[in-house]
């Protein structure tokens, strides 16, 4: 894990800090620094999402790459935030618990660690609300 690459997005990952286009009203998470609707006419400002949403679709990951192997099976979902934008995230619950439309809220968790000696990447996952 590249340290600058992780550090640069830290606030976005830790606090669900995305962006908002004041021109058209769209919200973005992951953050965008250009509104795809308004492009250069858009005014982009930072926006911290509340972290409440619902599961739009999901999968139970049974086979993962090495960094996530210990956590399998885990729930991966597209979560639709209250503000209307969607993101991909893990949902901390058993495979039997998750369903389309399940209300969820943000939780602060470890995402990956770069081995035993490298940096730990923290970020936002979701738990049943």
């Amino acid at each position, binding site marked *: 894990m590249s340290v600058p690459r992780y550090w640069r997005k830290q606030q976005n990952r830790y606090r669900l800090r995305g962006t908002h286009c004041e021109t058209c009203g769209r919200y973005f998470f992951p953050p965008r620094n250009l509104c795809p609707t308004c492009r250069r006419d858009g005014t982009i400002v930072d926006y911290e999402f509340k972290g409440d949403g619902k599961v739009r679709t999901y999968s139970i990951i*049974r086979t993962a790459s090495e960094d996530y192997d210990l956590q399998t099976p885990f729930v991966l979902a597209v979560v639709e935030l209250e503000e209307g934008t969607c993101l*991909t995230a893990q949902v901390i619950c058993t495979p039997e618990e998750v369903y389309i439309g399940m209300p969820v809220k943000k939780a602060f968790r470890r995402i990956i660690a770069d081995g035993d000696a490298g940096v730990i990447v923290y970020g936002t996952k979701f738990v049943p609300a």
Partner: protein
Amino acid sequence: MREVAVVGIGVTEFGEKWETSFRNLFVEAGAMALEDANMSGDQIDEMFVGNMSAGRFVLQEHIGALIADYAGLVGNHIPATRTEAACASGGLAFRQAYTTVASGLNDIVIAGGVEKMTDVGGSVTTDALAGAADREWEGLVGATFPGLYAMIATDYMHRYGLTREQLAMVSVKNHANGAKNPIAQYRKEITVEDVIRSTRVADPLRLLDCSPVTDGAAAVILCPMEMARQFTDTPIRVLASAQACDTISLHDRRDISTLDATVAAGKRAYAQAGVTPKEIGMVEVHDCFTIAEICAIEDLGFCAKGEAGKLTEDGQTALGGSIPVNTSGGLKSCGHPVGATGIKQVAEIVAQLRGEAGARQVDAEIGMTHNVGGTGATVVCNILGV
């Protein structure tokens, strides 16, 4: 724009090619294509090579020159370029080649694709393929490639009532076709039971819903139609070559279960060729996962949304059906050497239109290919005809 023809095709055997290196795979396919076109390498004006991730799989970048070098094509110092759009890298190479010939910039161009995936362990493969989606906001949170398609499947099954068995039938049908294809990685038939009892990868997808890890290469040679008969008695016309893009992440799509880039590239291709889906006699679609074939059949307009499961169950997508899909065995059974797939699809349609497809021969005059990068962020559709 000039009319363009495919005059030569070459595809290596697909599979775990332990003894063959990345560069030699391509040289093998390229030589087969030149042989097929009865042509000398010196006649080639330019080369495009589709490759997704040689940097991860064999730690090699600068693929264009490397391939040209080992193919013996550096004597004339031709332009040699690698194209990359994840699993659509091959489709991209074909479209680039088509564009330069159609525009008159070049006369003879080789478009190829190659991937050597078995030099690394499964975990590295999973990780490298995750780079086809958004590394930062999908891959980093634990999204695997099967996981992303599995989320499409969850959404699709929830909305359209597709059954687990219908999904399995896609794989069963593709294996039936692949069993008849001498270059296919898995030349064996499987049953619905085999699929729904195979190892769970990412619910609801199981191992036999997923295309395999494959080594392989493919190459085709394009030239203006007016020159084509110098090289072959059976030139195949490129009626359309269209490309479209969409959001890199699945979560930003308008509709999880519709690949809008497929819809756009398909429409563009139909318009360019002046045909409708009804006139397409067979199609090679990008079945990296069974659900992907279901979506593709609908998004390309072969049936209405929600009906591809039924169409598959009714045998309409099998050999002898109303729209045979993936006569090669598709990515599932023929194998999926990522960068080579888009070119192999073209080679299959060319072989079919020439009447050289043997036991899997379909009687048709127009065929189509559909090559997807990522979860639908890039799509290339080509239409070919006799």
